[in-house]
């Protein structure tokens, strides 16, 4: 195994920053009261949680009472979509896209079984959705539109602002899965005209297992869980207090740093793309510019993603792949199929996602090691055309 470790899988999860952990620690130690308790120990924690809510709202341009803490992005998406569906008196119509995260797509499939109709809009070869197609898909039964702000695999940024305006014009709920974009690029719920927005702390250097749902005031969705009434009944259960504190601190920090960070990451990203494209038979997946600052997704032809990952891993490089073999499922990623990649090209895709902490030196190292890994595998491959 390599001595040097380079983590380029920030799209999967990110390290908790020291400042964030520091903010959390008191709530894993002496500040252990239940925020619902009326005694002093409870009240102190209640006020910390409400302060965290305020910070979170501020970072999104929302009002404090529009923020609901959840256990992560998956739960936020489920509450938004199922909650809206549960509110319907009879089966209705949902508009989404073919490149959504499973936590949207598979909820929609489940809702179809319950009688709802779902339109899965296609994307172009760069992963972009056409807002006009959204408008065209609207029917009198449409009650919600759910389009992700940025794709987790190929990083493509969707025109959510335009879609928000369309939804608002038709008086239809608009939800966006902003899990990948929050803390990376500015998110303003008012500008985006979004009614529901999902985010997850572990994607912006906060802890795992905590997220939030923004719900615009007045938007009506039904809770899925019942219990002690926490989070104003939308998400009952004793609050994950350290997680909530960590989320709000991480969001505060990352939003604060966006102007500087975005530039750094974009320049790392573009340099990595240029470097990788110098290798023979490599294609970039996703949009060349409209993409997450830290996201690089390329396909190495003639070789298979999981073996590339393993080869990179041997060099201490952590990345991820849209290959079936790495996820235990048999089909390649639905996103790569949706942008029209053939089976083999999809299987040879690797995602490098850079984030807080990655440096030019990391990039030097990756650009130094990748060609060797690829060459070695291509020498083994019956399809290669070796380099």
């Amino acid at each position, binding site marked *: 195994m390599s001595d040097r470790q380079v983590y380029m899988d920030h799209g999967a999860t990110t390290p908790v920053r020291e400042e964030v952990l520091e903010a959390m620690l008191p709530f894993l130690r002496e500040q252990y009261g239940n925020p619902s308790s009326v005694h002093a120990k409870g009240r102190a924690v209640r006020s910390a949680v409400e302060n965290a809510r305020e910070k979170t709202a501020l970072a999104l341009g929302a009002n404090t009472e529009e923020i609901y803490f959840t256990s992560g992005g998956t739960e936020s998406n489920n509450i938004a979509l199922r909650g809206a569906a549960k509110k319907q008196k009879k089966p209705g119509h949902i508009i989404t896209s073919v490149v959504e995260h499973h936590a949207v797509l598979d909820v929609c499939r489940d809702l179809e079984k319950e009688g709802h109709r779902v339109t899965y809009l296609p994307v172009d070869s760069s992963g972009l959705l056409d807002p006009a197609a959204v408008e065209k898909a609207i029917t009198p039964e449409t009650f919600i539109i759910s389009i992700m702000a940025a794709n987790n695999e190929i990083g493509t940024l969707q025109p959510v602002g335009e879609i928000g305006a369309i939804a608002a014009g038709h008086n239809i709920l608009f939800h966006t899965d902003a899990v990948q974009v929050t803390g990376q690029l500015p998110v303003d719920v008012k500008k985006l005209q979004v009614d529901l927005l999902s985010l997850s702390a572990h994607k912006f250097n906060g802890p795992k297992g905590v997220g939030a749902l923004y719900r615009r005031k007045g938007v009506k969705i039904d809770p899925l869980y019942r219990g002690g009434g926490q989070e104003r009944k939308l998400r009952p259960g004793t609050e994950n207090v350290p997680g909530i504190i960590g989320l709000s601190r991480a969001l505060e920090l990352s939003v604060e740093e966006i102007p500087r960070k975005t530039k750094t990451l974009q320049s790392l990203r573009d340099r990595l793309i240029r470097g990788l494209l110098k290798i023979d038979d490599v294609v970039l997946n996703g949009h060349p510019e409209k993409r997450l600052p830290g996201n690089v997704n390329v396909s190495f032809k003639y070789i*298979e993603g999981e073996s590339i990952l393993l*080869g990179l891993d041997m060099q201490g490089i952590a990345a991820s792949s849209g290959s079936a*073999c790495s996820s235990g499922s048999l089909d390649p990623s639905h996103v790569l199929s949706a942008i029209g990649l053939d*089976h083999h090209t999809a299987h040879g895709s690797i995602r490098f996602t850079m984030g807080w902490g990655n440096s030019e030196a990391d990039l030097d190292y990756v650009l130094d090691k990748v060609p060797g890994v690829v060459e070695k595998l291509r020498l083994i*491959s019956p399809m290669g055309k070796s380099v």
Partner: protein
Amino acid sequence: MYNEKVVDHFNNPRNVGELADADAVGETGSFKCGDTMTLYLKVKDGIIEDVSFQTYGCGAAIASSSMLTEMVKGKTLEQALKISNQDVADELGGLPPLKLHCSNLAADALHNAIADYRSKYEAGKTG
């Protein structure tokens, strides 16, 4: 995920490439995950004298291919035919359950190569 032996075979695959003067070639592909493997054999007096492979696939597929080539070298065709996919996985010290199917191509390619050999050189004998 993978044990040391698998990682070793992945990192240092044995008998890689095309055998220029192969007596037989066996191919196989997994429709399920798109893996493909080509196995080359050099046979003398019914004994596998040399062997090589080319594989497109995940780490488990590559390691299984490499392992197989070590297992068959020096064996008679009859002995080689008895090698199953499970034998290859066992010889590797086991594979993660989700990855077992990736090792299936190695023995299949071998069986195809032997069939190829027999159809070429032992055609008269059968039937």
